[in-house]
């Protein structure tokens, strides 16, 4: 049995923040869940994927976040409690349905889990999605701990059903990927079916309908505001004259700072747990009781700006500051020491903590960037493209493990802004320059948002080669299935959508399917695409070795070794491939047989045929 189905109310478990959200959803009677995976949200749907195989819970990995939200909207309209999860940039993809779903509202409770990523541990930007609550007018809850991740998920479902609005649960990486003790509550039964009550003059958003809906939406906002004023996690503690306001994970840094500085009796501390609508009356009362205010919030000065506006409306003139105090900035994530210093600086408190060690005499340390795994098929495909095109072509790339092709010695990533941008930006690059364009996209990303760009390329007669790196899984985020996957290997029944058929169906005439571990044949196919006058697509098919190992699909092959009688130390293997199974020892290349998975690409690259399978 899945550990999140443990039916022991009152028991404490050490749960990952994302597991706590999933448990909270189950305690709220979740019946329907959708997502597109994305770090740091991915472990929430992973729980649902596993649990849906043991229970009546419906779960799907949807094609992208927009689709996930629309699938969820249909289920919530039928009255089922529904959760949709995504990373912060996924919210951009889902923004179109989000804005009007906010007008239409829901019947069954719907919680949209949004995972922001301050510091961009695994993201292309660090946008602050608290703005989406303000843009859409949807309520937003912000937990501060693993326990609150669970408790607020339950509260979010109740609030959603009461207001008939989706509720956004906003998390950040340091909440998603933190483990803490969580006290379990009762599990609720799962409803398998709801019923849709037709009401086209509410649900079909033609202008005449939407004019009424916008008015209704503003009325719901007023109700949400009233809820926020008395929301339990909009909590004020302490009775001092120094005001501090914080949200999310910063509540922990701030609480620890106040205790470390020994200023508990001087501070009045406000935790904002329901951050939209902001509890304006509660904040006004708070501002009237303090002499100055420090706002501790990561990323944008969202609350700081609102607090200043509320103060102005109420004729309150005390100083209110956040960004610019101590090290508090709009960049990256906060940390306990930074917040402690800001609190101490702002209020004139003293703290003498241990000083970090002096690192000025450290030598230059070799970097350890993340790297494609030993036996990763992407490395082989990159090698073949470079063989065919040299190093002059422009390489728009996309989001996945293969983005690591940015790093030397591969160095084959030139442009990336978002999921799917490889294909569409290639249209622009090829039209606006005379340079050759070869772009890269992964299989899951192709389905997510590559197809529309490909249709554009065919229709508008652009000229470039798109390489689809099909490793049979969504590798980067932890091996989730996608529409092109053989889901049977993961124990679920889903209809497989063929990438090749989709590509041909989009009107691409020059299509090559290659096996990248066959180096010469792959180079030949890519060479052929180079001469084609139009859009070419090369589909490079080989399973991700980590996924193959995890699902028992790994071919039994021997690891390789270097025959030093033949090796002339050209080092083409290590210089072009830089496989992590290879290292230098006394100026000779050595292959670590424990890391090598026998892909044999290096053996085909070696000009002396000096790389051979190990002897028994």
């Amino acid at each position, binding site marked *: 049995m899945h550990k999140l189905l443990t039916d022991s109310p009152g028991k404490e478990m*050490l749960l990952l923040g994302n597991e706590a959200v999933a448990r909270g959803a189950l305690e709220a009677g979740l019946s329907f869940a959708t997502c597109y995976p994305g770090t740091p949200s991915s472990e929430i749907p992973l729980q649902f994927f596993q649990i849906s195989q043991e229970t009546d819970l419906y779960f799907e990995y949807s094609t992208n976040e927009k689709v996930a939200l629309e699938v969820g909207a249909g289920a919530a309209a039928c009255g089922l409690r529904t959760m949709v999860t995504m990373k912060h940039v996924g919210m951009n993809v889902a923004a179109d349905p989000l804005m009007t779903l906010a007008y239409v509202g829901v019947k069954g409770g719907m919680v949209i889990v949004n995972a922001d990523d301050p510091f961009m541990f695994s993201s292309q930007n660090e946008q602050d999605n608290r703005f989406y609550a303000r843009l859409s007018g949807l309520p937003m809850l912000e937990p501060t701990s693993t326990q609150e991740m669970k408790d607020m998920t339950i509260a979010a479902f109740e609030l959603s059903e009461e207001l008939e609005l989706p509720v956004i649960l906003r998390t950040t990486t*340091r909440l998603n990927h*933190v483990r803490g003790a969580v006290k379990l509550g009762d599990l609720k039964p799962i409803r398998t079916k709801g019923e849709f009550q037709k009401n086209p003059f509410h649900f079909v958003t033609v202008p005449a309908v939407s004019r009424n809906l916008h008015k209704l939406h503003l009325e719901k906002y007023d109700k949400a505001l009233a809820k926020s004023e008395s929301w339990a996690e909009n909590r004020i503690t302490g009775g001092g004259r120094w005001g501090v306001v914080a949200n999310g994970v910063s509540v922990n840094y701030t609480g620890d700072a106040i205790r470390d500085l020994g200023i508990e009796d001087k501070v009045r501390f406000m935790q904002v747990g329901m951050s939209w609508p902001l509890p304006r009356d509660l904040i006004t009362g708070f501002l009237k009781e303090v002499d100055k205010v420090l706002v501790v919030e990561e990323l944008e000065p969202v609350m700081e700006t609102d607090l200043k506006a509320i103060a102005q409306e109420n004729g309150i003139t005390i100083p209110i500051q956040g960004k610019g105090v101590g090290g508090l900035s709009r960049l990256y994530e906060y*940390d306990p020491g930074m917040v402690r210093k800001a609190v101490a600086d702002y209020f004139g408190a003293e703290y003498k903590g241990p000083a970090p060690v002096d690192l000025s005499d450290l030598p230059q340390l070799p970097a*350890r960037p993340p790297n494609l795994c030993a036996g990763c098929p992407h490395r082989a495909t990159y090698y073949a493209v470079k063989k065919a095109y040299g190093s002059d072509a422009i390489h728009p790339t996309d989001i996945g493990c293969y983005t690591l092709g940015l790093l030397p010695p591969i160095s084959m990533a030139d442009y990336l802004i978002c999921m799917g941008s490889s294909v569409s930006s290639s249209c622009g690059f090829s039209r606006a320059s005379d340079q050759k364009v070869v772009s890269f996209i992964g299989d899951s990303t192709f389905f997510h948002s590559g197809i529309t760009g490909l249709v554009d390329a065919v229709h508008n007669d652009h000229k470039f080669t798109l390489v689809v790196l099909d490793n049979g899984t969504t590798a980067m985020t932890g091996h989730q299935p996608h529409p092109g996957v053989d889901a049977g290997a993961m124990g679920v029944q889903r209809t497989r959508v063929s990438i090749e058929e989709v590509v041909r169906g989009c009107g691409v005439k020059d299509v090559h399917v290659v096996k990248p571990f066959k180096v010469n044949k792959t180079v030949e196919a890519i060479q052929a695409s180079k001469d084609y006058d139009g859009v070419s697509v090369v589909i490079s098919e080989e399973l991700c070795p980590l996924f193959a190992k995890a699902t028992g699909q790994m071919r039994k092959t021997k690891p390789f070794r270097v025959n030093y009688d033949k090796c002339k130390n050209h080092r083409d293997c290590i210089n072009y491939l830089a496989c992590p199974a290879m*290292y230098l020892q006394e100026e000779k290349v050595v292959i670590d047989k424990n890391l090598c998975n026998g892909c044999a690409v290096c053996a085909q690259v070696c000009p002396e045929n000096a790389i051979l399978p190990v002897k028994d």
Partner: protein
Amino acid sequence: MDTKRCVFVGVGGQGNLLASRLLGEAALAAGIPAVVSEIHGMAQRGGVVESAVLMGQVTSPIVSNGEADVLVGFEPLETLRTLGKCSKETLVITNLQPLPPFTVSIGQGTYPAVDGIMDLVSAKVNRVISLRGNDLAEEAGNPLSLNMVMLGALIGAGVLDLAPDGMKEVISTSTKKAFLDSNLKAFDLGMESAA
């Protein structure tokens, strides 16, 4: 107990996330409040993986520079790279056996001498416990049990209010049967080398 901030650093695949999770489980079982922070995603692909376990009266899930009570380094270069988390009060527990990054293989930097690394570390912190962790893991019968060796050394160092038996109990309930004996042996070998 006093607040204790432990930082774990290693290379993707060395198992430091499991070690920090098990330490968190053991703290919870012993009734000590604990938070464990981890990094997932792209960084795990052969890159540096850092995690932290904070115990006692603290709710922040991460450790600022200079604030680690203990740094557990699974690889000597990464121990040195993470030294900013330490102050002159810190205990450093480190594996001595290098895992050179691929950047070194392709000539983008040189791996510093391990003796030099240890001299730098020892001069800056309160106390250093160093061990040949991979050799001990091999001796325990499972090269992948380096994380158990390092956990053993941490418990053996005696700075946390956690009994070895409690830690072993958690290892026993979280380990596949085939690896149980070697994991417990690795833990014991780590403990001995820290005593």
